[in-house]
């Protein structure tokens, strides 16, 4: 039996990585599988993929998919800086960052915000479980007010909502999902990769060891009971034809930079993902009602990404040589003489 190949002739196995060392049942492992599926179906060239991460359970996961791609597991909370530098060095790379709630909302909040502010072209996935797993179960900054730690301690602080922060900063792509909802996560990952600019995807990803008990608002059962999807998401890549046969008025279709489409099918109230105020309202209303709002919250395809704003050429800067980079001897001589 021959394996099914994607559009660039690679089997799904080509997108696999090393065996996971995370706990059995960890939400992050599901996200890794969603990532493999999304990258395989998109037909991403492994050699053009750059997997970036910080420190923590989530940040280990880039080792667990697309083993042949380059990866960089940096320092805690600083994935955005490394990603920014690498992206500028080579605009051809597909930057895929994986972070966690501690890595993003605590130690890395500053870099997270500044990356959004610059609109660096990358996908930024937050594997959000509200707890520090590797250091054994302390609250993180995304833990909800009143949520209960495994040993009974109650969180007395307001949470930082990465999606709300991203919206406030004018992030060009903001989405939230749940690791157990592959039908939603996979198209969102694809859309995030197709999007040119910073795409924030906050995925609630339960920690089975330290944060999956009663009283937690990041447990499997809590999320299953409280998830409220604002729209069904499907993604049509640029290499497939668009044929949508929904009834008029029931779907929204947004074209992304590379010609792909993201198609949103209305569920309940209509949400316009190009309306930032509406996105904030949906989040706030969900929070007040005790719901976890998931789906594509906001998308702006008109904003320039940083490298475009800075007029960095498409040809990777890393490929430039002496003739592109040095002054000519004449220019050099003229320039030196100006210091006389």
């Amino acid at each position, binding site marked *: 039996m021959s394996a099914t190949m994607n559009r660039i002739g690679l089997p799904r196995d080509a997108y696999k990585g090393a065996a996971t060392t995370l706990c059995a049942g960890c939400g992050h492992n599901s996200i890794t599988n969603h990532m493999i599926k999304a990258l395989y179906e998109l037909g991403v060239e492994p*050699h053009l993929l750059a997997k970036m991460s910080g420190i923590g359970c989530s940040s280990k996961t880039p080792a667990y998919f697309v083993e042949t791609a380059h990866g960089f597991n940096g320092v805690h909370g600083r994935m*955005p800086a490394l990603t920014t*530098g690498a992206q500028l060095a080579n605009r051809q790379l597909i930057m895929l960052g994986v972070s966690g709630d501690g890595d993003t909302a605590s130690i890395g909040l500053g870099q997270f915000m500044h990356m959004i502010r610059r609109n660096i072209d990358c996908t930024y996935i937050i594997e959000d479980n509200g707890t520090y797993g590797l250091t054994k179960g302390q609250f993180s900054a995304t833990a909800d007010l009143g949520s209960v730690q495994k040993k009974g301690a109650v969180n007395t602080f307001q949470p930082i909502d990465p999606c709300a922060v991203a919206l406030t900063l004018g992030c060009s792509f903001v989405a939230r999902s749940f690791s157990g909802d592959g039908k939603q996560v996979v198209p969102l990952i694809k859309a995030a990769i197709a999007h040119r600019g910073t795409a924030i995807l906050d995925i609630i990803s339960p920690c089975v060891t330290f944060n999956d008990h009663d009283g937690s608002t990041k447990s499997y059962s809590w999320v299953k009971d409280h998830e409220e999807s604002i729209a069904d998401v499907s993604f049509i890549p640029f290499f497939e034809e668009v044929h949508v046969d929904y009834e008029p008025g029931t779907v929204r279709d947004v074209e992304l930079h590379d010609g792909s489409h993201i198609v949103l099918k209305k569920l309940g109230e209509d949400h316009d993902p190009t309306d930032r105020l509406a996105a904030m309202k949906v989040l706030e209303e969900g929070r007040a009602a005790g719901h976890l709002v998931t789906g594509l919250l906001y998308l702006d395809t008109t904003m320039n990404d940083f490298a475009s704003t800075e007029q960095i050429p498409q040809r990777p*800067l890393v490929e430039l040589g002496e003739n592109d980079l*040095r002054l000519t001897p004449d220019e050099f001589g003229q320039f030196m003489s100006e210091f006389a």
Partner: protein
Amino acid sequence: MTDQIINDLTIQAATVNGSGSQTANLVLTRAIFHMGIPVAPKNVFPSNIEGLPTWYQLRVTPQGHMARRDQVDILVAFNVATWHQDLRTVRPGGVVVHEEAFSTAEARTDITYYPVPFSKLAKTKIQSDTLRKQLANMIYVGVVAGLLGIPWEALDHAVKRQFLSKPKAVPINLDAMKVGFDYWQDNFSKKDPYRLEPMIGVVDGKVLVEGNQAAALGALMGGVTVAAWYPITPSSSLCENLIAYSDRFRTDPKTGEKRIAIVQAEDELAAVGMAIGAGWAGARAMTSTSGPGISLMAEFAGLGYYAEVPVVIFDIQRIGPSTGLPTRTSQADIGFAYTLSHGDTKHLVLLPGTVEECYEFARDAFDYADRFQTPVFVLSDLDLGMNLWMTPEFKYPDKPFDRGKVLSKDDLERLRGEWARYADIDRDGVPYRTLPGTDHPAAGYFTRGSGHDEHARYTESAEAYAANMDRLSRKFETARGALPAPVIDESSKSPIGLIAFGSTHAAVVEARQALEAARRPVDYLRVRALPLSPQVVEFVSRHERVYVVEQNRDGQIYDLIRLALPPALVDRVLSIRHYDGQPIPADAIIEPLLQSEAVPV
């Protein structure tokens, strides 16, 4: 009148920060330089935008001494707040040009005064209300020109040179200067011995360059393509110059595309992180900062060392600890930068001693970083970085870039994909790397700051850890022999030696001439890189006593040298330290050395 003193004097202008005095100071400097006389300006400025005192010292010597001098020959007193303090700095027999309104009731009697009604002249002779404050400074240049005999032609040239890009400003500045020039002619007769006379052939081929300008040009010629920085004195002008030069030399005139990315980051952590990300992706990447920024970069510096990522980090040193004196110079980051980060981290450090070396080392730092796949620190300082230095024109590079051991797609095909990121194939400790984007299935590897084996896979193996750390040590030893060697001058055949590095060089050059004149000649070794060259130990072994001169309190390089010496030689080295934030003068070397050698000063 005593004997004339020609072309050997120090002018100090005491002004108020933010009053536009810097333009006037530079015009005076350029006018004297245009006469063919060597100049060495030092700007002593406050951490302030407007209102605090600032001093500009312009030293003029026929020999071209570049170091600061403690004693002032000609004081231009513009600032009433520091008037009495400034008077004390003037050497006996010196000259004071001062605002007429300042009280001379309790002033010294051993100096010559030329009171000038600067405020009145500015009010009555300068028409522009908006520019009056700035132009008032130009009046002092005119007075000093009259006093010293600077020809009008030189002043005219200097103003035009200063306002090269703003020719409209030339006439009003010339007019203001003429006010002072005429005031001197009409009101004073010469009562002091100081004169300037044109010199022939001494400054030919020389230019005036700031170290940060030189480093920016060096980085550009070294092929930097990604620079990330956070503003901090005294480093900011390095990246600001880089931006200006890139706008001119790296921008496609048709498309506006830039062959460089320069990011003003949110802090120094992000700045060095971006540079390391870019270095990892294969760009020639850099950041520039000063002490407080270096402190923030510690964690990333360790990642760069351990994950073996090329990056160039400029540290334009200022006085610490903590915020310290942000606008004063120092060489006190050397020990910290050398081992920046926790857990057996150590770095390659380049120590430029002249602005020419700021250019060359900035340029070559990218080669060293690529060749040794590690952060390279370039330690300049405020004195070197922000003052103008007279220098020969820089040389055009005679070598292509050295990109180090990078495996291309073709290399990987030839190797049939068999390679390991951290294997020591060549037994020099330097491994091979691939760049992201290399189109070969074996190219990818996983870079991490956690424990890794030769294949870059995560491991906690004791053997793999120790073997990797030993290889990193081997790499460091390979680099030791490849970095810029010390510059050694043993022509004096003296049993006494001096060791110094960085901007201390200027004071050492002058001190050696004075010591030779005092029949105590000394040999000299200038350290230009860390880790230390074995030549340092050899130099010590050839001398009975060696004085290590540096601008920090604790004798940081003195300590590093003693650590490198065999026990029998340790007592031969002695330490001379200068750490008040002012660039070290030659006297700060001559006096302690002669004292130690038991010769009455």
